[in-house]
């Protein structure tokens, strides 16, 4: 006989995966639109954000109904973690939208000649998102723990880019507007890495019932 409660949990997991794939695509495309100065793609990323928002609402609805059914402890953790993962994914979608908005504006202006490594930062942030979601799917707390310290590397890169752009603005005041767009875009990538770290921490809680948030600061 089928287990209907398990089917409900599976449906929740599937929904998270669909949402995750949307969020990953949004980040990928927003970075692509930024780097390749693709105006049309930037517009599309912004339009698609409401789909990700809708996923968050639906996942919460599913989770709340599952919570009324007295789930087992491990299922209880899965359901609450699913809600938190979806919230982080929604915010990742929001950050992708912010990047796309800057990409849209930058695509309409001449390129800024600064040699900073936003590509590397994007690759790092995206890998963190992807791997934290893989750890969620595979319930792999070791993989999740390995993701957490990488957030610091992204933070450092963001600081580096920030100072490079600040220096460039001082020397080239005519580029201030465009450089500010880049600063905001880099900050969004940094936030995306933060959300990936949050997801990784939730995976550890899911697997080990241990809350490691705010415990690894310095």
């Amino acid at each position, binding site marked *: *006989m089928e287990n209907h409660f398990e089917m409900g949990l599976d449906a929740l997991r599937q929904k998270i995966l669909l949402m995750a794939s949307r969020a990953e695509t949004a980040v990928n495309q927003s970075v692509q639109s930024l780097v390749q100065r693709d105006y049309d793609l930037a517009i599309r990323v912004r339009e698609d954000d409401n789909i990700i928002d809708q996923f968050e609402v639906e996942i919460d609805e599913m989770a709340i109904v599952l919570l009324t059914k007295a789930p087992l402890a491990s299922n209880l953790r899965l359901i609450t973690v699913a809600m938190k993962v979806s919230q982080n994914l929604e915010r990742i979608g929001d950050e992708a939208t912010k990047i796309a908005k800057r990409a849209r504006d930058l695509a309409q202006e001449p390129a800024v000649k600064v040699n900073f490594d936003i590509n590397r930062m994007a690759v790092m942030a995206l890998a963190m998102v992807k791997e934290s979601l893989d750890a969620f799917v595979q319930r792999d707390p070791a993989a999740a723990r390995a993701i957490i310290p990488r957030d610091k590397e992204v933070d450092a890169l963001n600081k580096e880019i920030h100072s490079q752009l600040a220096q460039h603005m001082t020397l080239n005041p005519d580029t201030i507007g465009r450089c500010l767009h880049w600063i905001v875009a880099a900050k969004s990538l940094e936030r995306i890495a933060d959300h990936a770290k949050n997801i990784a921490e939730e995976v550890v809680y899911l697997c080990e019932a241990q809350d490691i948030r705010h415990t690894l600061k310095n």
Partner: protein
Amino acid sequence: MPKLNPPEAKTNSPGSNTLIQIESLSLHYGESKALKNISLTLGEKVVTAFIGPSGCGKSTLLRCLNRMNDLIDNVRIEGSCKIGGHDIYSPDVDVIELRKRVGMVFQKSNPFPKSIYENVAYGLHLHGSKSKPEIAAVVEQSLRSAALWDEVKDRLHASALGLSGGQQQRLCIARAIAIKPEIILMDEPASALDPLATARIEELILELKKDFTIVIVTHNMQQAARISDQTAFFYIGELIEFDSTAKIFTNPAKKQTEDYVTGRFG
């Protein structure tokens, strides 16, 4: 002038047609009023849970649906209860036919002291006309539907009383569905069972709703949340709230309902 809602619009069930329509139903046991002016519309092929503290009238109302209360002296019923649009309390109703359409499973499993096979075949013999192979086919189908076949197929002619409590209860469900009712009433069908047997009954109910309309009385709130589509909360003979189960358990309209479903009283 605004358009009146069609009758279906009164149904709180998800996208289903009305099957049971209870209107202003009151029930008296002698001088005492056990049900007070209940109106309720239940959809087809959905699971409806009746919940409420002991003595609230939920089992009494359940028993109104197949006129089991007729068997009790001094019972007086007002109002109407329609199934498929026809009032089951109208004088032309054949009560035996009604109970064929509206089967029942009780709190304590009550198999006949006969073989497993005969328990399921009994109703078929009683109602008539089928040949032996036809009866055998229905027995197998009913036992399969009740998720019992695999456990009993090699001992169909052993006594039903040798089955475990959970198996006996599933046998009673098989016996009820053998005569192809439209509605199955269940009065706390899992309250005497262990957690594993309870889980099997719950899964079974979720399977059965593909073919049957189920009304279940339960004291287990999470059971109601797990298996029902709509929930009716009763208190001292009154229907306090009736809505989709998700609504009752996450955002009930009445404080009393919220207090009860979250175990604050009862």
